[in-house]
């Protein structure tokens, strides 16, 4: 093989690989991207009840109810304009508290959010970034200056 042909082969192979990666990624994005909404967004956005989405906001004060066995819970996520009821079967994360930020991942069926995961990951303001941004958007943000 001449050096020129070798180089062409290499470039060809490289391009093929890049094409493969792009195709794989674009294909996967269609099915796996999980979109984030605030309760207000969900009022005028139609979502597919068969597709996972994320909803974030504050856990409304005094909205947390536990079932008798303590394993299924319901609470309300609010962005202080609108709110959304959530049910969840499972153990809540350590940092889940009323009045603080939370992100739930799951399915929205007939106005009730059925959460598969509840995340309360946080920085020092106990606030997931998406939630902080959506609160800022609705003008309800009162958090720390560092944001």
């Amino acid at each position, binding site marked *: 093989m001449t*050096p020129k042909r070798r180089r062409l082969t290499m470039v060809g192979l490289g391009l093929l690989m890049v094409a493969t990666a792009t195709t794989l990624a674009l294909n996967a994005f269609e099915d796996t991207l999980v979109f984030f909404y605030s309760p207000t967004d969900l009022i005028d956005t139609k979502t597919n009840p068969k597709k996972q989405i994320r909803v974030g906001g504050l856990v409304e004060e005094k909205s947390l109810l536990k079932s008798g066995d303590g394993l299924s819970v319901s609470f309300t996520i609010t962005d202080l304009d609108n709110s959304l009821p959530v049910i969840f079967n499972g153990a809540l994360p350590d940092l889940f508290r009323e009045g603080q930020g939370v992100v739930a991942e799951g399915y929205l069926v007939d106005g009730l959010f059925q959460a598969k995961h509840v995340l309360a990951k946080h920085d020092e303001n106990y606030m997931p970034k998406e939630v902080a941004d959506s609160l800022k958007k609705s003008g309800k943000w009162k958090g720390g200056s560092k944001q």
Partner: protein
Amino acid sequence: MIAELGHYALVLALLIALVQTTVPLYGAAKNDFSLMGVAQPAATAQFIAIAIAFGALTHAYVTSDFSVINVAENSHSLKPLLYKISGVWGNHEGSMILWVLILALFGFAVAQFGIHLPPTLKARVLSVQASIGVAFLGFILLTSNPFLRLDPPPVDGRDLNPLLQDPGLAFHPPMLYLGYVGFSMAFSFAVAALIEGRVDPAWARWVRPWTLAAWIALTAGITLGSWWAYYELGWGGWWYWDPVENASFMPWLSGTALLHSAVVVEKRDALKSWTILLAILTFALSLMGTFLVRSGVLTSVHAFAVDPERGLYILAILVLFVGGALIMFALRAPSMKLGGLFQPISREGGLVMNNLLLSVATATVFIGTLYPLFLDATTGQKVSVGPPFFNATFVPVMIPLVLLMAIGPMLAWKRGDLSAAMSRLWFAVALSFGIGIFVFWLHSNEPLTPVIGFALAGWLAGGTLKEFADRIGLFRDQLSKSLSKARRLPRSAYGMTLAHLGLSIFICGAVADSAWRTEVVLNAKERDKTSIAGFEAQLENVERLEGPNYHLERATVVIRKNGKYVTSVFPERRFYPVQQMPTTEAAIYTTLLADVYVSLGEGSKAQGWTLRLWYNPLIPWIWAGCLIMVLGGLVSLSDRRLRIGTPLKRAHKKVQANGLPENA
């Protein structure tokens, strides 16, 4: 006083680094040996100065000197000593000091051990390394000075994030940084080679051990981080494709590619420009990892103080260094002499495929990690990319890579014989089918994914073992002859065998855990029982106790199998009053084949406690596989050729008093 000394030492280090950047570079251009000679003592002095600064900060932490803002914000007098020390790098400012300390350590090591390096190359490498030091020391002094005072000092500190108060995490950042920053060495060698306009096998012999050392540390660091996430975060998983995890995984992938392409440069003098490019990109990905986790672009336990100014500065460093290096690459690479030719079916060809596949894998992780940021910045739409994306993109790229890993090492350099290699692979085929059928028989009415995963692992293990056996003539020659061949085999060959076997074991663990993990969540009062995967777990009692800087509830859970007592485990829930934060300390009963993982949730005596149990099959194999990969790296690093950095036949050459070989 000691804090001021640390501050002073940092400024001194910056000045030394400035000298080390400029003078040797100029000396190398003018071929002036005395100017080039400045690099070595400067690298030593810079390292000592930064070590003094690091020592001063550590002193402030150990003595709980709360007049230093950094200590007051991140430490507490009641904290155990280990976490006072690990608290030094458990915050942004301190971790940056650790970063430059390791950067200077690598420069120091090249200055000390690089006695056989051609003097101009050595001067240039140390100069480039020092320029990275200038950028980061400037960053610390301008935006992240850890030695600032607080007046009046508070009575006590604000404590370290309790999630970080853990032995696994105490050593995770230093290991990870050794890896990240270690790739700066490959970068410096690459840029120095571009300045020289020359890459030869000797260059690759120099780059390999540094890249290997960085790769070992990064592998160990990622493993520690994953292990910590597994037992500390309390959700029973070990990898979540979280952007922060990906930030460390991308340099690992491209670093692995670099490790393999450097072999081709060394042995065959080919793939030179590609290797240079890979060295630049690997360090770029390391810098990007630092940027992503330090700028607060991503939310995680790693994003300490969110400060856009710092993010911007790191971004500027990234653009400056990587952009500069890439421009230099574009100017210089075309003039580089083409190296040895090879056929597509050859060892080189196999390593090219390895590099392409690893690059594609890196690209998929890159796209998945950055796409949400890109979309947020352009449209404001918020999305998250989770495990399903990576399962759909990363895994399909890994399958051909693992298939190739068994074949590649069997091909000869330059021109390989595929059919001969395939005929040697009967053992891999046999092992692959054997394990696949065994797994299918065990779980016959379930999806086929784990069967494929195990068959792949068997294929890889079989190919690797067969290659090793052939190399020492096992079963072909007499045993004594094989053993003596095995003794003469270079350690790098053992290293490769171990690392590839480690990956095979890792694959088994990862596949088994994702396919067969089971979970039980229940609300348990004292004496309540449940069963999981053939084990019976009973909550005996829950006690309230006091830790050194936290309160805790500790459960006693008895695990039985077939009615017979196996062990008791003690999961805890801790509450750290200073940070007002609870943490979960899972308890794990491990056999070599599986973990029973118990985590205690909220509850009370009257209501009962939430108890989560997981049965994680083969999960210990994940850590074992990674450790074997690390071990393989260490064995390879101890290879005589790499230690000395020059071929055996030149090793005995006399060294002059000035540390240069006679013919230099």
